């Protein structure tokens, strides 16, 4: 099996699982060395050929596999020879860390700029403006909305933002809102 070191990382496993789903996971989790056909994979893994093809196609769309077509001289059929290209997974996940950092920073701003109300019955959250429109009653069940602190949310975001900046060597440009 190839890319063993990468595949030992639980987050990389999770990432592949997210892409190909549970049915495709046997294909994604055990990339052979060198080239392989869909039929070989199906037989080796005991899977339906269609499930194997679906998984390979998803990997291909995400630049994690490539193929080469070869025509069988006797039958005239095309064979697809697949190669797994997992080398760039670390770079992909690195850029995802930047993306998460950006998203957390904008979300923190939104959380700091707004006040929130909660329906205690249904755990639905409303911005102050929305809550006011509904005269502080849940539009779904009529319960009185309660003011809700998001301190813990902001604290958790602050902590992760710091960890990501530290890991990615990103200078912190602005101070966290209080």
């Amino acid at each position: 099996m190839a890319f063993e070191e990468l595949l030992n990382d639980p987050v990389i496993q999770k990432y592949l699982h997210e892409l190909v789903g549970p049915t495709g996971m046997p294909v994604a989790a055990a990339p052979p060395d060198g080239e392989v056909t869909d039929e070989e994979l199906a037989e080796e893994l005991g899977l339906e050929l269609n499930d194997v093809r679906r998984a390979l196609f998803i990997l291909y769309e995400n630049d994690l596999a490539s193929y080469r077509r070869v025509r069988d001289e006797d039958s005239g059929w095309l064979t697809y020879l697949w190669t797994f290209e997992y080398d760039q997974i670390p770079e992909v996940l690195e850029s995802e860390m930047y993306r998460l950092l950006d998203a957390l920073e904008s979300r923190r701003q939104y959380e700091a700029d707004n006040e929130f109300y909660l329906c205690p019955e249904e755990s639905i959250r409303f911005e102050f403006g929305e809550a006011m429109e509904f005269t502080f009653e849940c539009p779904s069940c009529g319960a009185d909305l309660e003011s809700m602190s998001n301190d813990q949310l902001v604290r958790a975001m602050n902590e992760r933002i710091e960890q990501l900046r530290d890991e990615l060597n990103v200078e912190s440009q602005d101070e966290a809102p209080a």
Partner: protein
Amino acid sequence: MSASPEADLTEDERAGLELVRQTGGIHQSEFWKELDVSSRKGSRIVESLAEKELIDREETVYEGHNTYLLSPTAMDLDFQLLMAGDMLSPFVADDELDEQSDAFSQFVMRLAYQ
């Protein structure tokens, strides 16, 4: 990918790799001074580490001189920071998501209350 390429590093190479990882990125002109080796030896260490893909090497100008910026590879990053509990950052499998989406709200909630 066979056995970890870190297994057969020399002592100097190991120290060099450690230095790059600890600093998160260092110029080659500082690298050999920090390691307390000659510049020639420093560049041999860098050559070997870059060839084994254990560090990234990028041409740059530092204090008016052409040098290389040496940095850890993406594989050294702690990808666990993409997780909230057992949930992966929802942006990973979805290009169009924004930070107000339900999926991301769920992620943030998980961060705070896991």
